């Protein structure tokens, strides 16, 4: 039997101290009220204990000012909790712009993670300390949840849509990944480790055993699936131009428009008929079943690379390690 008795989790992300400070405030309020109630009950119970069966205590009328006081003070305190909690929640929900992208696919019962540089991991995530990381996540089957207690963050991972989580690790070490949304038989085996590494160690890790950047894997898949037959990348083909697509606003045939984000591109690959770009015919076949969720993420990353980032030259298909054959799942 383990003899250790941890009482508080390690703080290993920029969010963790914010969450813990909020916790301390709520703990202080709770301890104050709990002790107040306990002390009052014990005091009254002893001070006014029944001394004879026939005694009739004096009648005490309700006091309006007291009722208002003990309504208003807790209300004020809870509103502080709400606003403070909301501000921390905004910090948890909004990844910074410089966050490094990592894709996560959950399935019964494992986590599959892909780095931009092409590294693919199962149930392990290696990241450098001090670098914000944004996870874009989806599931191949049921709902899962990516939870790293040391980072004080979690998010459900759903089939059919992308959810995000982010964290900026502040301390090197090895931290638990838990699936915290019940997902079936081996739910409690759907666990892993985050390795937060010093930057130079991370670079060493990155250079070992790479299989080509994520975008280059996506480019390969783009060729394998014969996407380029219609989506010409040099001239205007029968299908919408994918250059400079990501992040742009796409006019649709029904007169509305949509922002070309990850979810839109995923939908266009798997359910092409759902949104038709204005001026095009609905001729694209669905790729449902032909491409895995990881493959979709690689394609998205490739399509993203066709839109040059302002001021940044990374992420293009030619950058990173030389393209190698990717091992299919």
């Amino acid at each position: 039997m383990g003899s250790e008795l941890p009482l508080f989790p390690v703080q290993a992300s920029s969010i963790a101290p914010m969450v813990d400070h909020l916790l301390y405030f709520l703990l202080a309020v709770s301890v104050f009220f709990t002790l107040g109630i306990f002390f009052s009950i014990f005091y009254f119970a002893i001070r006014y204990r029944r001394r004879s069966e026939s005694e009739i205590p004096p009648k005490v009328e309700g006091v309006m000012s007291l009722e208002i006081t003990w309504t208003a003070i807790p209300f004020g305190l809870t509103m502080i909790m709400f606003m403070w909690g909301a501000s921390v929640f905004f910090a948890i929900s909004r990844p910074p712009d410089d966050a490094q992208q990592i894709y996560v696919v959950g399935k019964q019962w494992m986590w599959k993670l892909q780095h931009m540089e092409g590294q693919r991991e199962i149930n392990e995530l290696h990241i450098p300390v001090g670098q914000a990381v944004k996870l874009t996540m989806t599931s191949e089957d049921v709902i899962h949840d990516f939870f790293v207690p040391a980072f004080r963050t979690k998010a459900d991972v759903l089939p059919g849509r992308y959810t995000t989580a982010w964290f900026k690790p502040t301390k090197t070490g090895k931290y638990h990944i838990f699936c915290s949304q019940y997902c079936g038989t081996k739910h409690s085996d759907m666990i892993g480790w985050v390795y937060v590494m010093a930057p130079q160690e991370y670079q060493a890790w990155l250079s070992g055993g790479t299989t080509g950047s994520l975008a280059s894997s996506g480019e390969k898949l783009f060729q394998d699936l014969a996407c380029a037959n219609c989506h010409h990348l040099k001239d205007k083909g029968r299908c919408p131009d994918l250059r400079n697509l990501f992040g742009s606003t796409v006019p649709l045939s029904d007169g509305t428009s949509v922002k070309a984000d990850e979810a839109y591109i995923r939908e266009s690959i798997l359910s092409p008929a759902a949104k038709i770009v204005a001026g095009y015919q609905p001729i694209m076949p669905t790729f449902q079943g032909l491409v895995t969720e990881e493959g979709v993420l690689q394609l998205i990353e490739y399509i993203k690379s066709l839109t040059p980032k302002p001021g940044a030259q990374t992420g293009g298909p030619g950058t990173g390690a030389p393209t190698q054959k990717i091992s299919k799942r």
Partner: protein
Amino acid sequence: MITAAAQERQTYLNESYGLKSWLLTKDHKRIGLLYLGTITFFFFLGGIFATLIRLELLTPKGDLVAPDTYNKLFTLHGVIMVFFFLIPSIPATLGNFFLPIMIGAKDLAFPRINLLSWYLLVIGGCFGMYAMLAGGVDTGWTFYVPYSSTYSNTYVVATGLGIFIAGFSSILTGLNFIVTVHRMRAPGMTWFRMPLFVWSNYATALIQVLGTPVIAITLVLLICERSLHIGIFDPARGGDPVLFQHLFWFYSHPAVYIMVLPGMGIISELVSTFSKKAVFGYKFVAFSSVAIAVLGFLVWGHHMFVSGQSVYAGLVFSFLSYFVAIPSAIKVFNWTATLYKGSISYATPMLYAFGFIGLFTVGGLTGLFVACLGIDVHVHDTYFVIAHFHYIMVGGTLMAYLGGLHYWWPKISGRMYPEGFAKLSALTVYLGFNLTFFPQFILGYLGMPRRYWQYPDEFQVLHVMSTAGASVLAVGYLMPLIYFTWSLRYGAIAGPNPWGATGLEWQIASPPPAHNFDETPIVTTEAYDYAALEAAKVG
């Protein structure tokens, strides 16, 4: 010694004999006892599952049962305890028995529907038992899709049907209570003279009638999705899994108040009777029940802060959740203030009431943590949540239920239970409960996820504490079963009003006659008027 006169007196128990006289009874008191037997069975069944869960978690490795078995254990524990014990518990037993008497009525408004309600619970329970015996169900009591609709290979449809049918039992009980309170109060029993137990059951009945149809339709959709493959919830069929969560919690959050509001009503009765004081701030306590019932419908999304719903939805639900905390706080403060200058007895029901206030305070305050967006992201789906809702449902509802059972047992059975033994059980339950569930708050903040069959070694010490507490708790729950049964034959004769309480139920014989009142009572005083009671005794 039982006198010949007492033996001959006609009561609801000796008015007729035989199985048929019970199974076809329209007497709300007998139906209350039918419910009592039924939910006691389900409570101990759910308790057996809890015991197995705690034993499995004694060690980090899954070594007692297989993972699928473990998943079925926590699912059946949740389904049985929530739908077949906690929801019917107080309203259908003590409410059924005492609500009509407390307002001076001879029965509920619809006695036949009342009997039907019990049959519906039993039929629903049979479906649940079938699912259990045929191979179990492993979705968790929350039935999240697409796991429940597409991936689980267990008896989801039978379980869902069982809950669907039992839901009608709850709706009909609620309907009966609403009509009874509106139409059948005795002359002089104005709304603000009603005991607070009646107020809280009335508020509960509103939720039962308005909320339960939503879980019914949700389960029907789930069953259709699972058996007919229509695409409502499964994204692979064009559905939306988050929609299921909205529908499920639209009922299942208010259901928490179905469970705890009647308990709050009991505590108001106990605190008043055992301090011989009118409940401080009667109207605030009464209206806070209604406020909880109404606000409880507006906060379901706080179960979904990390589900993928929008950040702004999260904000709104967090904000509204804090509103529902206020009426609960008002109740706790008013109960405490009731003790001031009282004549406080330490009889067993009062010990349960003290226990309730303490545990409900902790459960309620930790509710502020899980309503707080910044903290909930971390503690969501961990043991912190498990600990929180067990403090509310077990520390709250179950303590109140046991307190109420000890309080009204002399009226129900006409006999007293052994006081010393009962005090020991109250203390055992309180200590066992805290040892079981307090370590789970720490486990949860450390990050231990719920529904885990195995766990990392560093969590073991806290799990061992929890399992040790659970074994103490089990002893505490078995004791009342023993001494209540014992008291039926050997307990001292209780007399009509052993506690010196004010309610109308204490002004009639114990056990009550078949039609409660020989003549319709006329109410001339406020609830909890101990001076008037004393004056009547003298005069």
